[in-house]
């Protein structure tokens, strides 16, 4: 193996160096865009989308290129023979190649990336805090490059009847990579995608190498891995097709309705079509005349809704730590904001609010419970671990179980807004806006505890305190609206989406609680239920049959179940969440999926029967095709080396050309026709 290893290293070293230079240039370009003047609203971070885009696409391109360069030149016939005809097993040759490829790939990808990380970690390099944990997304992308490396090996190695099916190895890698780079996906999902995808692609490539790209000589394990690769590849292809179809056929904005409050304090039912305000009615359904100008500029006559943030600790059924996307800056340094010349962040590990000078890129201010001090002075007392941070118009609320703070980044002040009474727990909090342009002094804070609904200014001056409403069923506060001239607050309550199914929620009313702080009155208005927001072209849902929905959801449940079995707390939470999600899925999609699965299995059975490869084990294959649906059928078609079928010269029945005896009459294959010109002194005939 060492001979092959060093040969491969030497042969591909130059390519790896060129790849490293190319990747480094791309990273440098991506890194430079982070500092571009027109990028002032984004954060100078190694998690900047423009930088991560380079790692997301660059590392796979690098891995793929190395994989192709290692195999394609040697796949030419004579070169391949020269490579494999040596007294070592194909295993050793393959692993020698793969070890060399990865030995070249990882330094080529890691060196420029870590240099960028090192630069980001230097004080004064970026106007934002840095944590080495933030290199994880880039590292995950670089590991994805290894997926593409093996995908490229498989693509270059496989002998296929239809050339396009070679690309399924790369498509499977793309599917795993999409899980890794999906902005909403968690570290847990990344680990799953890499831990599942890498071994499967590795084994499939190994099997293809050992069998010189053919199917039949492959070890069983490799055949199974190849089947999975083809299945994931087909599923990814269908996913891409349906996404593209949706993007081209369906107009992206959705249709839907929501309740809002205008500046006169009227509750209005707003109907949106293709993302635009279409019509307005009151709660009773009477139309409210709205001019075209009003439709265009809703901020002039509607109260700005403030989102009430639930505290996750109060809702343990929600996925917790480990399920947040690790690719988003805000999950490292909560809720960034900006004021003139300054960029503001909350550093949860340190418990401080940090202010960076935008031009100098230096840390200027550190905020704690006593307020803000200059970074060169002794640090203030930290806020400590937070439940959440809520922000509206650049004004954050720091939510703890026992305290709520608001920060004024202009005056450099911190205000303690709330401390609990006995038995009181904070459930949700939000910032209510009188209008979209409101500043710190015009806003109000709304808190929901298990006992009260509280309103106060952002400096902590009380505005109202009323008892928390009670409902027969579970409702969650969703939005708050604030009309400052009348000192009126509106809080909207919706059915708990995690507790009730879509069908149940369709029948449950909404509620709007109006709190008149001036007159100390509270009114609860029951409002008709609202339909779900839906795509503007719902018929494109029919494209769903292309997707492997059962597998997608079953995989989430299975992985979470494994996590539970091995005692992973975060996976256990995932299990509970995914199980509920899966049950919801089953209720709505089971019958269409069963029909698709049965159809795919029936076609597969017809193929197996027609090509005379029906054997006892085929029932298992059909079961897998049923579960995989259309993607399973395509995977089977490209997986199997379908034998040629000809009419038997003896009995006329159809028979496989790869079998010696006819299953119908038992006859062997006839010898080639002799014409008397043969010269067979030493035999050469089947006697």
């Amino acid at each position: 193996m060492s001979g092959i290893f060093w040969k491969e290293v030497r042969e591909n070293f130059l390519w790896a160096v060129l790849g490293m230079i190319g990747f480094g240039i791309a990273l440098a370009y991506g890194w430079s865009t982070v500092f571009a003047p027109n990028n002032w609203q984004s954060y100078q971070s190694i998690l900047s989308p423009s930088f991560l885009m380079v790692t997301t696409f660059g590392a796979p391109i690098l891995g793929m290129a190395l994989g192709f360069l290692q195999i394609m030149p040697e796949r030419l016939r004579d070169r391949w023979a020269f490579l494999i005809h040596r007294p070592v097993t194909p295993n050793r040759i393959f692993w020698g190649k793969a070890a060399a490829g990865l030995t070249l790939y990882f330094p080529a990808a890691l060196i420029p990336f870590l240099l960028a990380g090192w630069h980001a970690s230097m004080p004064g390099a970026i106007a934002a805090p840095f944590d080495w944990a933030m290199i994880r997304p880039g590292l995950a992308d670089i590991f994805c490059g290894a997926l593409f490396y093996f995908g490229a090996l498989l693509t270059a190695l496989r002998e296929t009847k239809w050339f396009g099916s070679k690309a399924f190895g790369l498509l499977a890698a793309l599917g795993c990579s999409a899980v890794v780079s999906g902005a909403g996906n968690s570290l847990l999902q990344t680990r799953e995608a890499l831990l599942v995808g890498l071994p499967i692609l590795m084994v499939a490539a190994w099997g293809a190498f050992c069998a010189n790209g053919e199917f039949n000589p492959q070890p069983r394990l490799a055949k199974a891995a190849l089947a999975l690769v083809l299945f994931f590849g087909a599923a990814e292809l269908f996913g891409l097709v349906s996404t593209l179809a949706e993007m081209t056929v369906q107009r992206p904005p959705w249709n839907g309705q929501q309740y809002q409050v205008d500046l006169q304090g009227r509750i209005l039912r707003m109907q949106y079509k293709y993302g635009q305000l279409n019509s307005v009615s009151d709660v009773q359904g009477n139309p409210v005349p709205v001019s075209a100008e009003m439709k265009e500029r809703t901020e002039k006559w509607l109260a700005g809704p403030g989102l009430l943030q639930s505290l996750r600790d109060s809702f343990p059924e929600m996925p917790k730590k480990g399920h947040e996307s690790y690719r988003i800056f805000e999950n490292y340094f909560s809720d960034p904001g900006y004021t003139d010349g300054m960029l503001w962040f909350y550093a949860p590990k340190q418990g401080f609010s940090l202010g960076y000078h935008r031009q100098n890129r230096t840390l200027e201010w550190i905020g704690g419970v006593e307020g803000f001090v200059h970074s060169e002075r002794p640090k203030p007392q930290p806020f400590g671990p937070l439940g959440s941070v809520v922000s509206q118009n650049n004004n954050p609320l720091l939510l703890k179980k026992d305290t709520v703070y608001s920060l004024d980044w202009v005056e450099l002040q911190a205000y303690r807004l709330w401390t609990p009474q006995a038995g009181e727990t904070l459930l949700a909090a939000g910032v209510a806006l009188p209008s979209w342009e409101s500043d710190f002094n015009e806003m109000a804070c709304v808190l929901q505890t298990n006992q009260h609904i509280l309103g106060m200014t952002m400096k902590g001056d009380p505005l109202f305190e009323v008892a928390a409403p009670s409902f027969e069923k579970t409702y969650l506060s969703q939005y708050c609206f604030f009309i400052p001239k009348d000192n009126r607050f509106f809080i909207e309550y919706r059915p708990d989406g995690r507790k009730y199914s879509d069908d149940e929620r369709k029948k449950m009313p909404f509620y709007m609680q109006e709190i008149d702080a001036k007159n100390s009155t509270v009114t609860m208005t029951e409002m008709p239920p609202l339909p779900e927001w839906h795509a503007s072209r719902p018929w494109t849902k029919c494209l769903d049959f292309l997707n492997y929905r059962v597998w997608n959801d079953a995989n989430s449940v299975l992985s979470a179940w494994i996590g539970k079995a091995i005692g992973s707390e975060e996976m256990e939470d995932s299990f509970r969440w995914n199980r509920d999600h899966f049950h919801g899925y089953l209720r709505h999609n089971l019958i269409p999926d069963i029909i698709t699965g049965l159809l795919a299995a029936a076609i597969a059975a017809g193929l197996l029967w027609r090509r005379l490869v029906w054997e006892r084990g085929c029932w298992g294959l059909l079961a897998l095709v049923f579960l995989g649906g259309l993607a399973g059928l395509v995977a089977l078609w490209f997986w199997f080396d379908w034998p040629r079928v000809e009419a038997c010269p003896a009995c006329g029945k159809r028979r496989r050309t790869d079998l010696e005896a006819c299953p119908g009459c038992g006859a062997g294959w006839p010898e080639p026709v002799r014409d008397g010109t043969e010269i067979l002194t030493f035999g050469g005939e089947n006697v």
Partner: protein
Amino acid sequence: MSGKGNEGPAIAIRGLTKYYGGQKVVDQLHLEIPRGCIFGFLGRNGAGKTTTIRMLMGIVEPTRGTAEVLGHDCTRWTPELRERVGYLAEGHHVYGWMSVAECGRFQAGFYRRWNWDIFHAVIGHFNLKEKQRAGGLSRGQRAGLCLALTLAPEPELLVLDDPALGLDPVARRSLLEAMLYVTRQDDRTILFSSHLLSDVERVADRIAVMDRGVLRAYCTIDDFRARVRQFILRFKERPPAPPELPGLVHSFRTDREMALTIVNASDADRAVMSGLRPEAIEEVDLGLEEAFVSYVGERGEKSFFLHDLGGKK
């Protein structure tokens, strides 16, 4: 060198068949190559020689049929078996960035037995310098280096797929000499395919001829030449149409002559030819190349009538 399969033929092929898509490129091939034999594998381009060799070497999977190489199933190659079989594929590929010496060291690292004397003797025969980069070698030199790499492990069986392809006559001669010098010493088996019939004629004990995937001849060269005969029939006038003979593979008519190439000509064939009443019948010995071209070339009659050309004038 010991191991399984020291008895019996070096290569035994039974019913070997290969389809590429719907095309049958090798059809029910049966062949045995005894040990110690230099075996020439002949056929036109696309006849199925390389596919057969690739199936034997475990690079291509047969559609059906079996083959044994040194007593081992050709679909189950082991490192031990690969050590006993030297294979020189088409194209004489070496890693161009290595020097001649590095090529030798690299290849030697895989073998338990590696005869440096043979390696040096062969590269010396081709005037190769150890420090020369393999990528800068001429085609003939590269063939020599490949041969050195193939011969140095002293294989029991040497399989050469068109080893002289693209070489000039001097390089071809060197290649043959080196091959014969080293391998004949230990009475080893050589299977080589070639289009160069003079080379085959010089070294092969036996030949097999494939045509469109089918084995048509398996014999000695002398046998082949004895069985493929040409008969020149001279006439006073324009020759008649060629007779219907079972072994007739080729006929050629001029104004006064008719040349018939017949395989396995029998007395009955001769009687039919006499029945055409020629002035004379001359039986001609064909060289291997002429016999081969007639044997695997396009069948049927070709004519060249001088008076036709005269009429056009």
